[in-house]
């Protein structure tokens, strides 16, 4: 006599009194059961509206902080990108260079692989610009000689715009004999990038902690649900429910919590963007620049909801695995 599952199932199911469900019938019923369960669990959440709302708001808050950080990161990165693309290297040429020599140098620089464009500003043009910008045009007229050198403005290729690439290019340019001075503001870019990366690291650490808190909140909520419904779980086990069958509603509830938390987080990030929009506009206006703050894209929004639902699902799965198996009918 065998006590294996296969044998026991075969033998018991062989009883003429038991009408088994066909495979396709089971698949159809399972799909229908999942859909029904999903909707039923959503409605069930609102049986205790206050508790549900509080849980969702806490989850929303925990998820909204990483979301807001992401939006801020995205916008700061855009600003950083704009600074980087504007980075130029100014080459002050020796005063005694003739126009021909300058042209030779421009052609030579044009052969550099890490230089995108070279713009020539003659001594005369430089003086005119200085007059316009400084407001000392009359005073400058009294000068016997133009004190300004000719300048070549070099824009590096995109791959050389980072501090390391710029440094290499500057080192090469400094070897050129006709160039008197190479000027590039690498230091502030480096410092800004270092600060930016530090902030990003801090934000990632905080976001990880907040996402962990989402796991803990959902896990604890599901644990309380399981303990509150202990009697019901015992009955289900007594009438032959498997752990998989019993855990399904809890998994769906966890996923719903996470999903709704994601919706709240999405709303928070949207409100933040709308709220900051006028402030950013005012600030950039002061610098005569234009910068539109951007919110989450459609794909990012969908991703946020999926991450929320997944976190809820994982958290409830952990809780269910830990507590459901310990409940046995008495």
């Amino acid at each position: 006599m065998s006590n294996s599952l296969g044998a026991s199932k075969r033998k018991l199911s062989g009883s003429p009194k038991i009408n088994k469900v066909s495979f396709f019938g089971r698949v159809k019923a399972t799909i229908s059961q999942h859909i029904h369960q999903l909707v039923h669990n959503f409605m069930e959440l609102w049986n205790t509206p206050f508790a549900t709302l509080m849980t969702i708001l806490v989850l929303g808050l925990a998820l909204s902080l990483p979301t807001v950080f992401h939006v801020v990161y995205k916008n700061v990165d855009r600003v950083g990108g704009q600074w980087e693309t504007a980075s130029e290297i100014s080459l002050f040429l020796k005063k005694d260079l003739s126009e021909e020599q300058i042209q030779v140098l421009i052609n030579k620089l044009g052969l550099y692989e890490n230089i995108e464009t070279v713009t020539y500003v003659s001594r005369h043009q430089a003086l005119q610009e200085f007059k316009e910008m400084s407001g000392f045009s009359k005073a400058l007229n009294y000068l016997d000689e133009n004190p300004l050198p000719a300048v070549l403005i070099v824009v590096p290729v995109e791959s050389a715009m980072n501090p390391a690439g710029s440094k290499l290019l500057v080192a090469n340019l400094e070897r050129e004999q006709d160039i008197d001075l190479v000027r590039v503001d690498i230091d502030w870019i480096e410092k800004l990038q270092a600060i930016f990366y530090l902030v990003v690291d801090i934000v990632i650490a905080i976001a990880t902690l907040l996402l962990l808190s989402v796991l803990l909140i959902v896990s604890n909520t599901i644990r309380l649900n399981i303990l509150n419904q202990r009697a019901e779980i015992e009955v289900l086990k007594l009438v032959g429910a498997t752990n998989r069958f019993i855990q399904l509603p809890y998994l769906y509830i966890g996923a719903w919590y996470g999903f709704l938390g994601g919706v709240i987080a999405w709303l928070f990030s949207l409100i933040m963007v709308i709220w900051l929009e006028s402030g950013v506009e005012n600030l950039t206006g002061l610098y005569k620049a234009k910068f539109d703050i951007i919110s989450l894209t459609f794909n990012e929004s969908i991703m946020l909801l999926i991450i929320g639902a997944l976190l809820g699902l994982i958290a409830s799965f952990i809780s269910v695995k830990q507590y459901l198996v310990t409940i046995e009918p008495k």
Partner: protein
Amino acid sequence: MILFEEVSKIYSDDHIALNSVNFHLKQGEMAFLTGHSGSGKSTLLKLVSLMERPTTGRIVLNGNDISHIKGNDIPYLRRHIGMIFQDHRLLMNRTVLDNVGLPLLIEGYSRFEIKRRSLAALEKVGLLGKEDAFPINLSGGEQQRVGIARAIINQPPLLLADEPTGNLDPKLSLEILTLFESLNKFGMSVLIATHDLGLIAKMRYRTLTLREGHMINDGLLRD
């Protein structure tokens, strides 16, 4: 249907609940299990329904040795046992129809089939018309009938009842036992644990009597 061979159950506090119990309940047979409180009735039912494991001995259920069955297999075996409890064990937040249809929902039947068979089971126990009620709004006798309808809905070959008339008056108790009798006539094996000797005497069925974990009588109860 149920075969007990030298079955003993000793709990962790060294309490011997059952001591070398032997009996055989055949397919389609109905029997009472009686004894005082603490005699081992509930332990015996728990062993059959796989809520407990025997310390020694062998239990065969419907041809399957369940003494050392794996935990994952237990739900599938329980689906072939109808269980009725003194405290009914109904889900109070679900309707009568949902309670009765629970075993079919677990087995993966369609909602239409569950409703059809639940109504048929409710008709069998005389509760047709109460399907949308919640258990809390039913009397003790009606709740017990809901429990019976749930136990028989998937036509299990074995019905176990633990003090099914414990909270009912004599008239209702007799009605419930008559219901068991009619189910037995359809070929269902029935084992009823009760300490109501008057009721057992009226029904005149085989009676297993336990005292302090020992089986002291197996046959018709003497007056």
